[in-house]
C-alpha cells in the first residue's frame, strides 16, 4: 500500500504504518510525535486531494 502510494507520487512520509501494543504508551507518543513532525515538514497535501466536489 505504502509502496504503491509512493510509486504514484504521494510523498514518502505522508502515509506511515506502525504497530503499537496497548502497553506501549511511550512508543505511541513517540510515533505520533514523529508522524506529526514529518507530515508538518511536508506541508499540506496538494497532490492527492480532490480539489472540490464541484469542479468539472
Amino acid at each position: 500500500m505504502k509502496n504503491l502510494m509512493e510509486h504514484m507520487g504521494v510523498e514518502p512520509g505522508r502515509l506511515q504504518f506502525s504497530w503499537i501494543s496497548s502497553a506501549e504508551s511511550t512508543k505511541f507518543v513517540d510515533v505520533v510525535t514523529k508522524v506529526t513532525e514529518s507530515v508538518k515538514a511536508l506541508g499540506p497535501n496538494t497532490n492527492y486531494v480532490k480539489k472540490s466536489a464541484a469542479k468539472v
Partner: protein
Amino acid sequence: MESYIGKIKEISERLLNDGTVECVVGFRKGTVALTNEPCMITKASDVKDLVWDSNCRLNLANYLTGRKEKIAVIAKGCDSRNIVNHIIENKISREQLVIIGVPCKGMVDKNNPESLQSNCATCTHRNPVIYDELCGELVEEQTDVDKYEDVRAVEAMETQEKWAFFEELLSGCTRCYACKNACPLCYCPTCFVDESQPQWIGKGTDPIDVRTYHFLRAYHCAGRCTDCGACEAACPQNIKVRQFTKKLEKDCNELYGWEAGLTVDQRPPLDSFKLDDPDKFIM
C-alpha cells in the same frame, strides 16, 4: 501457434462426446481484425467454430467464476495461473475443470500486430502451470528478459514527476471499467466503486476519483495479478493500466519471492503470516 487448433478441436470433441464435460470455454473467430471472441461450446458439432491464434488476448479464467458445471477450458500460461488463483480462492473447484493447456508464444499487440503485447514479450510462464491435456510441445521459457524496466523508470522519478506521470497516464480514462471487468481477479459481488453507502469514491470523472479507482483496483490485485495483460488489452483508450499492478507484482516478487498462480499448494503471501515477513514499512 495456429497449429494447436487441430489438437484443441480433437480434445474438445472427445471431452464433449464422452460426457466428461458439459462445455468447452475457448475462442471463436472475431468479426473484426485482430480480435477473437470468447465462447462456450456445448455441442460437439460446434467444435469446428473454435480458433486459436495470437489474438486470444482475454483471460478465459474470467469466464469460469462461480460456474457450477463441468468445464473444459483452453488455457495459455497466464490463463492457467489465473485458474490456479481461482481454485485457491474457491471461485471454481479443480474437479470441475479439464484444463486444455496451450504452450503460448505470446499474443500480438492489438494496436501493433507486428509486435507482441508488452506483457507477453517479457513473460516467463508461457507454458501452462497446470493442465490435464496439452495441445502441443511445451515451449522454451524466456529467461533473459527484463520484466520491470518500466517500473524502475518510474521508481527513479521524483515525487512530483511520478504524480505527473500517472496524471498523464490516466488522462483519457472514462471509467468504463473494462479493465477490471476483463480481469479474472475482479469478482466481488459489488465493487467498491459502485458502493454508495458509504460512497468510497466519487462516481464522476474527477482525476482524483479516477486515480483512486486505479490505485485501489491495483491494490486489490496485490499478490494475485499474473500480469496476463487482459486489463490493458481490454482498455478502449489504450491506457497502460498495468503500470499500477506491475509495481505490486514486482514488490511481491522482491519482498516475498512470490509469483501469483504458480501452484495450488501454497497460500499467497498477503493471505498468510510468517514470522520472517518483511516489515520495512512499519516504523
